[in-house]
């Protein structure tokens, strides 16, 4: 297992060099090799979605993708959402609508919803609910997450 590969990951517009085993998941590489611990691991079998990141704009379970597969692709994580001290409209909406409690699932929901709102700004309520049911939150009962994402959708539409 020690045949390591040298890779460069492009995360939030910045290059990170890492020497990883082929079996290293993208989530582990982000957390351990890039020091970006905002991406969380809730199940490591692709159900809970806490590790969701954007790869070339698409929401991806970072626990189910190998780091080597992500080389040469644009990765975005929760650390890249805010512009300095200015929260993204979605982050701000989560704050405004009490869309988080313990905050462990939050990065996954933020990346999932960012991906979907960027790709489909006029997504219907029904389709949005379907997408948001990809991830698990154990604290909020989802109501306020759904409210926050809808509010951000309205704001991003301008």
């Amino acid at each position, binding site marked *: *297992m*020690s045949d390591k590969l040298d890779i460069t990951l492009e995360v939030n517009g910045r290059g990170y060099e890492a020497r990883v*085993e082929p*079996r290293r998941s993208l989530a582990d590489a982000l*957390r351990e090799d890039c020091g*970006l*611990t*905002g*991406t*969380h*691991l*809730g*199940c*490591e*079998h692709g*159900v*809970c979605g*806490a590790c969701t990141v954007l790869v070339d704009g698409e929401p991806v379970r970072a626990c189910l993708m190998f780091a080597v597969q992500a080389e040469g692709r644009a990765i975005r*994580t*929760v*650390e890249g*959402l*805010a512009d300095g001290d200015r*929260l993204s409209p979605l*982050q701000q909406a*989560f*704050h*405004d609508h*009490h869309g*988080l*409690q*313990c*905050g*462990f*699932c*939050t*990065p996954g929901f*933020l990346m999932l919803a960012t991906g979907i709102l960027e790709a489909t700004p006029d997504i219907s309520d029904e389709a949005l*609910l*379907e997408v*948001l*049911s*990809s*991830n*698990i*939150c*154990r*604290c*909020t*009962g*989802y*109501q*306020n*997450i*759904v409210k926050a994402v809808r509010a951000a959708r309205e704001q991003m539409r301008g």
Partner: protein
Amino acid sequence: MSGLGARAKRLEDLPLLTGRGRFAADISFPDQLHMRIVRSSLAHGRIVGIDPSQALAAEGVVAVWTGADTADVPLIDFRQVEVESLKPYRQPVLARDHVRYVGEPVAAVFALDAGLAEDAADLVAPEFEPLAADVTALGTPGEFAPGIGNHPTVIEKAYGDLDGAFARAEHVISLDVAVGRHSGTPLECRGLVARYARDRGRLEVHGAAKIPHLNRERLAGMLGLELDRIHLFEGHVGGGFGVRGEIYPEDVLVCLAAMRLARPVKWIEDRFEHLIAANHSRDQSYRVRAAVDGDGRILGLDAEFWHDQGAYVRTHAATVPDLSCAMLPGPYVIPAYRARGHIRLTNKTPAGTYRAPGRFESTFARERLMDVIGARLGIDPIDIRRANLIGPHQMPYALGVETLGTEIVYDSADFPRLLDRFIDHFAHADILSANETRRRNGEFAGFGFGYFVEKSGLGPFGVASAAVRADGTVEIVTGAASVGQGIETAMAQIFAAEFPVDLSSISVIHGQTDRIAEGLGAFASRVTVMTGSAVHLCALKLKAAVLEIAGGLLQSAPERLVIDGTCVRPADAHSGPSASLADIASAAEQTGTPLSAHEKFLCDHMVYPYGIHGAQVAIDADTGEVRLERVYVAYDVGRAVNPTLVEGQIAGGVAQGVGGALYEEFRYDADGQPLAATFADYLIPTAREMAPIEMLVTEDAPSPLNPLGVKGAGECGINAMGAAIAAAVGDALQMPGAVTRLPITPRMVREILRAPR
């Protein structure tokens, strides 16, 4: 506005929204080792031998421990509701001669990285001699160990003349019901990082949760450390729900390894482990029997239940069955009562508390019984409850039983009023008539509800310190803990209500044992009540001290001054002379009495919030699927510090209640193999399964037992959700007592539909 009752936005959010949280797995120290636990694959067996040699020879492995290496470590002790007869059933940190559930730690591997530790753990090959597994609490009692039975005790609580009640009864109505095995399942798995400074003899434990101070004492005892040689540090905690933060075998192993191996040791649980190793809960089977008069009034209630404790008795000892016995009477006048809870050991993952422990289960039993009594006597569900509710003139109401070391006395309530408000606010009559129309059109639609009493604010004390710092900001140090519920915001609001400064200038510390000597943490919905009251007392004391000093600076009587944001000014003048809090703090510093307060709030009794859960469902007769359409919650919280946070607690609890009522269950096969060890099998509700929740949060019955009138909100979302959904399914099927077990699976619904009526 930021004081009591304001919908202030949370102080906690910013790091959590930007990926700067510090959860257990985010903490690392140079040179750290990683621990991986080798777990039993067998539900019950004798350990023939464990050969660590292959694992020891593997790349990066520093040590492998088995039960023999930890034989000198005490069994993990109880922390509340201790019962002497349960002591033989405490769990060792590594199995010694027997394994008793799939997932039991049998060896620990320590290696240079997590992957190598996991690789090496696969090379540890324990040899077991299989023994028969016991997977039900309902069978004939057997043995836990040679000469030690698996039915250690019966918890019993009783008052009144039960025999007389049954002799006088016009109707005797009995019912068998059960709540399946499920648990809190926080989204962050457990994890801990410990490091030991050998030269100073000091152990630091990071990743603490729930009860850092209590665990510090327990760990110090187990590890043979003086109390001042160990400190626990809480970072961000990804949900608690009763499960996270108790002392488990892995916690002790991490600490012990940091000391013995003289390197930092990190352990992060994975989800498969969590589902078979962290505390399970619920799993109680009831037989309830009511003596009822001709008008539907209960004369006596006799309850007997079997509590499936799993393989060992963990830190909670008899807490859950004790609470079941104590809280089963709920909001009703029950003149004669007896509850007997049989604690049974089985070969499943050990059980502990989960949000509303003993209440989710006993409320289900009681409210199902109320529905059946009503149906049998031809009295509708509202009227049968109204006939039995304790009246407001009866408050405070001593129930006649004790739990958690305190007598149960309902401190304040107006149960009939909340029922009226529920009916009115949610247009109950319209809900019923809409369902009747739908049923006439061939649909299976129904509504049901359950009434519940919660408990909160477990004492005996809450403690806090507060100080105005030299820059004029305020720091509050509490002995409480955060599991995501928003305690920083709530404590800051309570403080600011008396000491009106901007919430953003208040920092709230929790879960750090080196910052405050004692604290009881976050459990039993206690923080707002107990810690909040201590914070309130700190605010009063600091306000008096600040105004006194400001009086000197401004040459004014202190009672004519007010605190206003960052300064103190005359109450009647918005302009003119004022003194900044920073200057006042410096002045205090110079006199040698810095601006600080330390307060302890004492209360021997708990406070009792109460509420009603309603559920609207529709059933797909072909598949048996129960579709939740709407949830209604009325809840009297005494006084809401922050209604948005209270509603957030309700919504989260509702979702977990829906999970326990319809989806979540730790099932086992006949050999004791767990059938729900991933999130593909243990089904947690997603946004799709949830329905809109309508809430009515009332403040009709503030508590007389604390200066704020507050009661807890942590467990109110879940309590009667199982009962409400079961009643709704019964209504949809027009068979009120049909549902007797949770979770209500599609298969169960199909069987009810096909059964001859």
